[in-house]
């Protein structure tokens, strides 16, 4: 492991680390435009020029300088300040300075670095070279070539990540202009990433343009719920309204990227088809009243027709906590209740899959529910459910989150159906009791992605309408069934889950961290007690 010095601070870094990352580890920020941790190094913006104190010759660019023993750089010399100032001056020569009408304002590297390193008076005597503004080059992207500083991040993204190669720098020198082949448009489903990585206002997101000044937004870390990959996201919100999702860096899952389907799915939070109130046989009622009615029906069915007449379908679209809490609640009150897991995609899933990020399974928690089902040991599949429905023995079926009726297709329906879900669908239409389930970005909890990585959800905005987290609805149902001992908090439910599902042994919700934690592939033979991170009562 090479040891390098940055401004006199010694730091040991992994072999192959470049000096921008090494400096970051030493707590020193080196300004840069073209460098991106998930793209090949281009070295064209020259903003990361540093002085080399020992172990090489300088000045040189930090992005293309690999850490090696004895290398010492300085970023705090007058020479470095002068170089940064000169680079800024060149980058701004032809820049239109249209910040007041530019959507990048507030999160623009040109603005940021100008304030930190530029602050010069224009010495430009000639007319500025102008390029084409407002080019509609894709479903999600507007290109303003005037603002481009030719860093080529978008070119490298199109070449190396999506491998579609639509974007290129045309012409030469100060006439260089970013663009697509005339008459063509971006065709891939990661267009939003182009706006993310553009350090200036050249590529902006059509969906977000002029909706909000970025400095009014607050970001909450969460996880995308549109497929089994579980891309890490920042939920940008203001006053309870979500304005956009942006990928949050997680090198083990989505690097710095996310697909456009997931990115635009923030609209689902305020969609028309959200289930916002509880509904019973008599129409809209309070959540508690509907839960009480459902509990009475569960009791009656179990009493009159035996435990096996009550069933629960776990939800691949619901959190680990919602699933575990529902399973616990029902098993506590009706020990012989039948439990099922019906895998498949709902009709509202988007129809696209690739080998970059978009998984064929469009449910965020199939892996987690499988592990819970495995630990329970008595969970039937779609065939078992079909059979149970066909013989009429299953009278009352509780369904969590998934559009199970749509997934089953033609099937004999149970006498009575209860649906705990976030969006209206065929199952909610057919249900006698409908309970509003809060969306993933509104709750505390976790999803387990297809890799077996348990990733934490934190509420960015309050739950819409009367909707509540799954574990809260489950605890309410348990109470109505006379079971008071079950936890309703996400951390408590996770603690209970981690104590009972071997693959989760030793994990805690707070301990998942920003990057999640893998479940045990080979469950430990002895139980590892999870750390108790619950707040003191």
């Amino acid at each position: 492991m090479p040891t390098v010095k940055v401004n006199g601070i010694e730091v040991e870094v992994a072999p192959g680390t470049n000096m921008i990352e090494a400096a970051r580890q030493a707590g020193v920020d080196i300004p840069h435009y073209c460098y991106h941790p998930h793209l090949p190094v281009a070295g064209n913006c020259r903003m990361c020029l540093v002085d080399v104190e020992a172990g090489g010759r300088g000045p040189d660019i930090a992005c293309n300088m690999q850490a090696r023993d004895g290398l010492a750089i300085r970023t705090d010399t007058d020479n470095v300040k002068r170089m940064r100032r000169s680079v800024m001056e060149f980058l701004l020569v032809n820049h239109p300075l249209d910040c007041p009408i530019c959507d990048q304002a507030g999160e623009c590297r040109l603005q940021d670095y100008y304030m930190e390193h530029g602050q010069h008076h224009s010495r430009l005597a000639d007319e500025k070279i102008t390029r084409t503004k407002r080019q509609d080059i894709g479903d999600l992207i507007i290109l303003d070539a005037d603002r481009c500083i030719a860093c080529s991040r978008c070119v490298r993204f199109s070449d190396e990540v999506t491998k579609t190669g639509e974007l290129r720098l045309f012409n030469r020198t100060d006439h260089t202009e970013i663009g697509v082949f005339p008459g063509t448009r971006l065709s891939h489903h990661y267009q939003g990433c182009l706006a993310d990585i553009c350090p200036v206002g050249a590529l902006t997101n059509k969906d977000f343009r002029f909706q909000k000044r970025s400095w009014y937004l607050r970001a909450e870390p969460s996880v995308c719920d549109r497929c089994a990959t579980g891309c890490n996201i920042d939920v940008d919100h203001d006053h309870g309204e979500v304005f956009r999702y942006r990928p949050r860096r997680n090198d083990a899952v989505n690097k710095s990227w996310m697909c456009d389907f997931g990115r635009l799915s923030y609209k689902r939070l305020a969609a028309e088809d959200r289930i916002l109130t509880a509904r019973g046989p008599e129409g809209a009622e309070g959540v508690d009243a509907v839960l009480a009615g459902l509990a009475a029906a569960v009791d009656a069915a179990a009493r009159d027709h035996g435990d096996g007449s009550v069933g629960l379908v776990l939800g691949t679209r619901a959190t680990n906590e919602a699933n575990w809490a529902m399973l616990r609640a029902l098993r506590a009150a009706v020990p012989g209740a039948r439990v099922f897991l019906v895998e498949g995609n709902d009709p509202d899933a988007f129809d696209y899959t690739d080998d970059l990020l978009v998984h064929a399974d469009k449910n965020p928690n199939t892996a987690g529910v499988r592990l819970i089902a495995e630990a329970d040991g008595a969970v039937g599949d779609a065939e078992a459910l079909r059979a149970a429905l066909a013989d009429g023995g299953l009278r009352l079926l509780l369904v969590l989150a998934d559009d199970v009726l749509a997934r089953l297709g033609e099937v004999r329906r149970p006498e009575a159906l209860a649906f705990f879900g976030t969006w209206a669908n065929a199952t909610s239409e057919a249900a006698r009791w409908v309970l509003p389930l809060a969306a993933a970005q509104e709750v505390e909890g976790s999803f387990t992605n297809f890799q077996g990585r348990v990733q934490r959800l934190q509420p960015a905005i309050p739950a819409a309408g009367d909707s509540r987290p799954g574990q809260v609805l489950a605890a309410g149902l348990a109470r109505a069934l006379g079971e008071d001992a079950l936890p309703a908090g996400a951390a408590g439910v996770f603690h209970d889950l981690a104590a009972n599902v071997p693959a989760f042994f030793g994990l805690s919700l707070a301990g998942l961290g920003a990057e999640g934690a893998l479940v045990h592939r080979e469950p430990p033979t002895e139980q590892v007690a999870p750390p108790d991170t619950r707040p003191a009562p």
Partner: protein
Amino acid sequence: MTDQAHNGEKVAWTEQELAEIEEIASRYPSRRSAMLPVLWMAQHKFGWLSLPVLELVAETVGVPPSEARAVASFYTMLKKKPTGRYVLQVCHTLSCALNGAEEIIRHIESKYDFDENGNTPDGLFTLERVECLASCGSGPMMQVGEHYYERLTPEKVDEILAGFESGEPLPTPRPEADEWQWNLQS
């Protein structure tokens, strides 16, 4: 993709050209390295590199069309606009300039009605000012096709252009130039 045709015709290579392209591509470890020679071939064949021609070249060397355009737009010798049948490239760098290049250029300009792209309306001539063509001892000079016309005077220019107007074919390059090219390829 663009649906436009090049000069009203669909663009395509002949069998023989395709074989030549394969030969060119075989010289490089990566097929995309054949980009410049194939662009050059395309310019010879089609006269200039319209969007459909660039798309054909990109397809031929296996890159996105944007890359063919990016490369073509970098080089001034690759024509992105239609040119006349005879491209008059008059050197205006130091030696030629001192020996009267501007006078030659003004003389040519006065003979025809060139548009903003430097083309005559009949599509016969294109006038270009170019940088040094390494014929400094014999300026002023111009290149037409791959042939050098040296020690130009207005009278000599009139004579040359009259020949072209009467339908004289593009002169072949000087023999030594041929040999030089041959050496490069072998």
